[in-house]
């Protein structure tokens, strides 16, 4: 793996007495989708603004593509696309004119501009309405227009602040699809969200923020193992004698729980469906249903803060 595209070391931000971001460290590698997760006000947006050189860093270091966002903000901003939280456009201009304006600010040449804008608008499915004023756009359309701006910029890193907040389920799915498309193009994505389940499906790795500190960092699977013990829960519905005993011996299973007459719930550190199926069949049982629940961030998050609470109480 080459140099990390984003490298953050001991980053802190104070406003007077209050510390908004406290000693945050993480790295984002090429072609990765990295999620900054946590409740509102946990310091995610401030971290992002520091990475873009839009707010001063109180202490610590950030490197974006090898550049210091405080000293060389233009070099950073040339290669990094940013979609702010509930992005705004000039309502009286058309979508096309809005993109033209930012394209000029990016220093794009006249000939390059129109072609790139058209390609970007097609990819976010706004080409047909590009001549309409942005004032008539829905929230989802605005978010997509913001993504078109990043696509047009041909950025190496896309920073998306709460890209799915306030969107209906359909619009969310469309947006997540475009984000996956960015990854396919080799763009590294740093996104922040307070909606854990939505984001889980696209993130390679996540950092959980709490009160300005990063409390957990890693892939969802890793965090699942770390916090929940076994991350996966496999539901087995099967008929036959002594199946529970049999399933207990499947490698990777940490716990077996009888949840109904013919139902068993397995906790495992990986997806043990194939082994469980084989175990049932080899014991002469009839397998009726087999399903898996992947570890969800929601579970990890809730469990983590429960544990924290208990520790504090103790």
């Amino acid at each position, binding site marked *: 793996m080459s140099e990390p595209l984003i490298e953050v070391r001991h980053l802190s931000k104070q406003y007077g007495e209050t510390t908004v971001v406290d000693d945050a460290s993480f790295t984002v590698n090429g072609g990765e989708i990295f999620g900054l997760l946590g409740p509102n006000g946990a310091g995610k947006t401030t971290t992002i603004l520091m990475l873009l050189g839009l707010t001063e860093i109180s202490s610590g270091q950030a490197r974006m593509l090898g550049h210091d966002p405080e000293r060389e903000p233009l070099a950073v901003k040339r290669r990094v696309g940013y*979609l702010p939280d509930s992005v705004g456009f000039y309502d009286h201009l058309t979508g096309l004119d809005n993109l033209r304006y930012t394209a000029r600010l990016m*220093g794009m040449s006249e000939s390059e501009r129109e072609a790139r804008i058209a390609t970007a608008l097609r990819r976010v499915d706004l080409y047909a309405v590009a001549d309409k004023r942005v004032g008539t756009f829905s929230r989802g359309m605005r978010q997509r227009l913001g993504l078109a701006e990043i696509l047009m910029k041909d950025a190496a890193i896309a920073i998306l602040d709460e890209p799915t907040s306030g969107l209906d389920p359909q619009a969310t799915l469309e947006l997540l699809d475009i984000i996956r498309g960015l990854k396919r193009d080799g763009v590294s994505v740093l996104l922040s969200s307070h909606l854990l389940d939505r984001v889980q499906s696209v993130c390679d790795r996540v950092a959980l923020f709490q009160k300005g500190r990063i409390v957990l960092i890693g892939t969802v699977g890793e965090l699942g193992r770390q916090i929940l013990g076994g991350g996966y829960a496999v539901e087995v519905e099967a008929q036959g004698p002594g199946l529970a005993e049999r399933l207990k011996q499947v490698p990777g299973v940490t716990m077996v729980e009888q949840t109904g007459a013919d139902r068993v719930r397995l906790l495992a550190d990986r997806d043990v469906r194939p082994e469980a199926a084989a175990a049932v069949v080899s014991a002469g049982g009839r397998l009726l249903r087999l399903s898996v629940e992947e570890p969800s961030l929601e579970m990890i998050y809730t469990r983590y803060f429960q544990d924290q609470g208990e520790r504090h109480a103790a």
Partner: protein
Amino acid sequence: MQREGSPWHGVGIVFLKELSDHLTSMRMRVLEWLVVITGIAAVYSAIQQIREVTAEDPFLFLRLFTRAGGQLPLSFVSLLSFLVPLVAIGLGFDLVNSEHNQRTLSRILAQPIYRDALLFGKFLAGLATIAIGLLALWLFVIGLGLLLLGVPPSGEELARALVILAVTIVYAGVWLALAILFSIIFRSAATAALVSLGLWLFLTILWPPLSQFLAAAVAAGPVTSAGELLGQLDTLQAFARLSPGELYGEVVAVVLDPSVRSTQQTLLASMGLALVERGSIPGALPLLQSVLVVWAQIVSLVAATILLFVVGYVVFQRQEVRA
């Protein structure tokens, strides 16, 4: 710590976008019609007056700008000194806070430009908009004068009128910089507009009598010599000049009337006194001398614009981007 890149990069792009916004906005159209209609009314009534008098006046054309009377008690330039601030405030009061409120600021600043470019571009576009409007109005007034008076202006008259055009643009710059400053300080456009308009009303309507009152309080007492009288006048002017309208008025009075040799002349005349400098030749001052008389006022207007802009610039640079 040297910043990489030029702060000017992007100024032109912001300038063109803002200019096109201004020129197509409904607000600008309303303001322009307001100025044009009142301006024409003032010039027209001035022409009526001039025709009735038809005295042997070597600077007949300049009377177009300064003559008041008839139905309209205001001259063209005094109308300008009243309305130009209104137009400047109308253009400037939401230049920066609208970017916050539309949530466009962070997106624009995430492009490879500095904040400087955004603020410079916005200020220059506002000033250019006003300059275009004033130039059109100026040409219109001269054309109207040519048609209705039938007397062509002399070269010097045109030059004097041009100086006034330039000074009017600077005067607009003061108010534009002030409006932009408030648009940076106040997140709400309505607050910024109200504060700017409040200050404008205070300085145009309340300040002149208030400054007289203050001057009287500071330098009161009976006048026994001409020196004391002039000293009192100086105090009065010092207070009055805190208002940019007063500075503009003094420039206009001197530049548009070659017979005026001092900014105190009109004040003295209102007391029934005349200013006679020893060794001076009565008659008209050449243009350069007229400009020299009010050079300090012109420079003050430019300085006020720069100062207000710099204060706004510093506040803007230190402001947080997030809403």
